C-alpha cells in the first residue's frame, strides 16, 4: 500500500466526518423547533419564573453559546468543536457536557459490541463457509439453515422474542435493566455475575440478529471460491481437507467479507444501540433513548455525531487492515 493511498483514505475520512457534521448542524436549524425555548418554557411552567424572565434567560443563553451570531460563524465554531470532540452541554443534565455523558456510557456499549460483533462475524462466516463446502457432512452443513431463516429478523425483534421465551416464560434471565433491583453496585463477584446475567439476552439478540447475514454472504462467496482453479489444484496436490478449507477456501472467501464488515459497521452499531435501549442497559443506547424522551437535543446530536465519527474511523482502520490480508492490494 502506497503512501498516496493512505493519504487518500484519510482525506476521505475527513470528508465523511465533515458531511455528517454539516448535516447534523443544519437540519435542526431548518426546523422551527427551538430546544432552549422548549426546555426553559417547560421549566417556566413547572418552576415558576415569569415569561419576561424566560426571554432574558434565553437571550442570555443564546449569547453564552454564541447562538446570536451569524450562522456561518456558528458553523465554524461548531466544526472547531467537533475536531476537539466537544459536543456542547446536555440540556437536561446541564453542567455535564455531552462528551462526559458519552464517556460514562461508552465502555458498556463497547463491551457489548465487541463481544457480539466478533462472535457473530466468526460464527456466521464459519457456518456460511461450511454450508457451501461440498465435502462437509450434510448434518454439519444443515446447521446454517436456521440462521439463514433468521436473516430477516432485526436484532430488536430478536430481543423481544428472547425476552418473551427466556425472560418471561422460562424466567431464566432478567427482563432488563443493568443489574437487579436492590443490588448495590460493588466490586464483588456476586455483583459481577448479576451484571453479566443482564447482558446475556441483549448479547444473544444481537448475535442471532446478525449471524444470518454473515452466513448468507459467506455462503455466496464460498460457492464462488470453491469453483476456483486454485482450490481444485490444492486437492490435486493431495492436501488434507482441513488445509484446503482453511488456507485456500476460507482465506480467499473471507476477503470480501472483511470489506462487507466495514460497510456493515454502521448498521451493526445502530442495532446494538437500539437493543441496549430496548433492554435498558447502561450504555449509549439507553442514553439516546432518554435524550429522545426528554428532548435533550444537544445530547441526541452529540451521540449521533460521535457514533458517525467512530464508525467512519473504524471503517478506515478495517480498510487499512485489508492490504495485510490481500497481497494483491498491497502491491497495486
Amino acid at each position, binding site marked *: 500500500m502506497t503512501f498516496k493511498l493512505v493519504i487518500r483514505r484519510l482525506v476521505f475520512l475527513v470528508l465523511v466526518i465533515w458531511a455528517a457534521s454539516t448535516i447534523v448542524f443544519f437540519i435542526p436549524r431548518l426546523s422551527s423547533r427551538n430546544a432552549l425555548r422548549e426546555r426553559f418554557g417547560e421549566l417556566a411552567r413547572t418552576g415558576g419564573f415569569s415569561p419576561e424572565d424566560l426571554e432574558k434567560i434565553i437571550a442570555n443563553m443564546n449569547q453564552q453559546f454564541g447562538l446570536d451570531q451569524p450562522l456561518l460563524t456558528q458553523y465554524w465554531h461548531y466544526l472547531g468543536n467537533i475536531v476537539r470532540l466537544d459536543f456542547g452541554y446536555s440540556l437536561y443534565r446541564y453542567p455535564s457536557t455531552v462528551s462526559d455523558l458519552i464517556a460514562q456510557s461508552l465502555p458498556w456499549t463497547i463491551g457489548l459490541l465487541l463481544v457480539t460483533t466478533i462472535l457473530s462475524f466468526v460464527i456466521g462466516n464459519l457456518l456460511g463457509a461450511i454450508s457451501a463446502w461440498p465435502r462437509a457432512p450434510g448434518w454439519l452443513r444443515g446447521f446454517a439453515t436456521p440462521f439463514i431463516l433468521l436473516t430477516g429478523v432485526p436484532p430488536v425483534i430478536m430481543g423481544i422474542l428472547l425476552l418473551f421465551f427466556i425472560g418471561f416464560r422460562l424466567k431464566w434471565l432478567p427482563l432488563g435493566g443493568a443489574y437487579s433491583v436492590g443490588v448495590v453496585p460493588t466490586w464483588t463477584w456476586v455483583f459481577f455475575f448479576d451484571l453479566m446475567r443482564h447482558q446475556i439476552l441483549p448479547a444473544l439478540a444481537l448475535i442471532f440478529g446478525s449471524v444470518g447475514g454473515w452466513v448468507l454472504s459467506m455462503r455466496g462467496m464460498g460457492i464462488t471460491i470453491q469453483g476456483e482453479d*486454485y482450490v481444485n489444484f*490444492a*486437492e*490435486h*496436490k*493431495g*492436501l*488434507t481437507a482441513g488445509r484446503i478449507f482453511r488456507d485456500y477456501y476460507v482465506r480467499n472467501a473471507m476477503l470480501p467479507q472483511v470489506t462487507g464488515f466495514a460497510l456493515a459497521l454502521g448498521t451493526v452499531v445502530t442495532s446494538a444501540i437500539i437493543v441496549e435501549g430496548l433492554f435498558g442497559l447502561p450504555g449509549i443506547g439507553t442514553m439516546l433513548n432518554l435524550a429522545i424522551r426528554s428532548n435533550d437535543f444537544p445530547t441526541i446530536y452529540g451521540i449521533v455525531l460521535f457514533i458517525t465519527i467512530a464508525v467512519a474511523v473504524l471503517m478506515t482502520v478495517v480498510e487499512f487492515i485489508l492490504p495485510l490480508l490481500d497481497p494483491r492490494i498491497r502491491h497495486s
Partner: protein
Amino acid sequence: MNVTLMQSAMESSTPMHALRAATADPVLRVRNLEVTYYTDSGRAKALDNVSFTLNSGEKLGMVGESGSGKSTMALAMMRMIKPPGRIEGGQVIVGDTDLMSLDQEGMRKARLSKIAYIPQGAMNSLNPVMRIGAQMVDAVKSHLPGEPKAAIEARCRRALQSVDLDASVFRMYAHELSGGMKQRVCIAIGILLDPHVIIADEPTSALDVVTQRQVMETIDNVQKQINAAVILIGHDMGLMAQFVDKVAVMYAGRLVEMSTVREMFTDPKHPYARALISSLPSLENKGVFQGIPGLAPSLLRLPSGCAFHPRCSSAMAMCGTTRPEPRILPGGRSVTCHLYDGEASHG
C-alpha cells in the same frame, strides 16, 4: 499428406527406443475406465471403456475435440470427478497400486506422490493470497509430515531450479508472475515428489506461442530428469507432435486410436484421426482448410453403433448398428473401427 508436421514428428527429440520398450513393465495401466455424468436431461457417458498402458519415460499426447473426454480422462485418473459425475468402473494402476481401490486418505496420499496433475489455465491455479513457497511447502508437508523444514525448502528450491525459475520466486505471489512463470510453478509443484505419472491438462492453452514452446521444453526436461510417464492433453497437434512419443485420439468419450507419433502423422488408421490430420494447416493445402463435416455429437444423445458414423466418409452399413471394440493391429497400434475388423490380431 502433411509434410511439415510429418517431418517435425520424425525430427522429434525423443528417440524411438522408448516406444519399443513396450515389453518393459508398464508404469501406468488404465483398464476399462468409465465415467458417467447424471444430469437433469439424462445420463452422459463421458468416458466409455477406455484402456491403455504407458511405460516410464514415455510421453503420450491426448487429442480430441472439446467434450471428447480428454479432461474427464485426466480427472478420472486423479479420482477428481465431481458430482453429478461418477466413475462407474475400471482400474488405474500406477506401478502396482490400483488407484480405484484406495480409500479417501490413500488416494489423497497418492496424488502428487504417485500421480501428479498439472492444471489447465495456469492463470488462476495458484492461491492469490499465499506465497509460491508456502504453496509448495504445504504440498510436500501433506505427504512427508516428518520431513525437516530445511529439507522441504531445499526440495522446493530444487524443483523451481529444474523448471528454470529463479529462487526468488519462492517468496513471490502469483500476481507478480507472468503466465509462463505461473505455468512453470505448476510444473515445479507437479514434480516435487518425483511422481511416476504426470498429467498435464492443456498446459499451454493460455500462453503465447513463444512461451508455449518454452513450457513444453520445460516439461520435456523435467520428465527426463525423473523419468516419469507423461500424458499431455491438448488440441494443438502441431506443438504436441514435436514433444510426444505416442498420440491417442479421443472421440465422444472413447479412445478411437492410439499410435506412435510417426504412424499417426504418416498413416492414421481411424477415419476420425485421418480427418483430424488432414484438417491441419500445412504448406501443401495452404489457404484451404478442410474441416470435419458435421458437429461433435452430444454425449446425451449419441448416435447408435459407432458414434462417429454420421460424420464418417467411410461409414458402412454395420457402423450404424454395431459398436466397434478397440483392437490391436499388428505392430501394437490400437484402433476402434470396423474398417480393421479383418486385420485385428486380437480383440
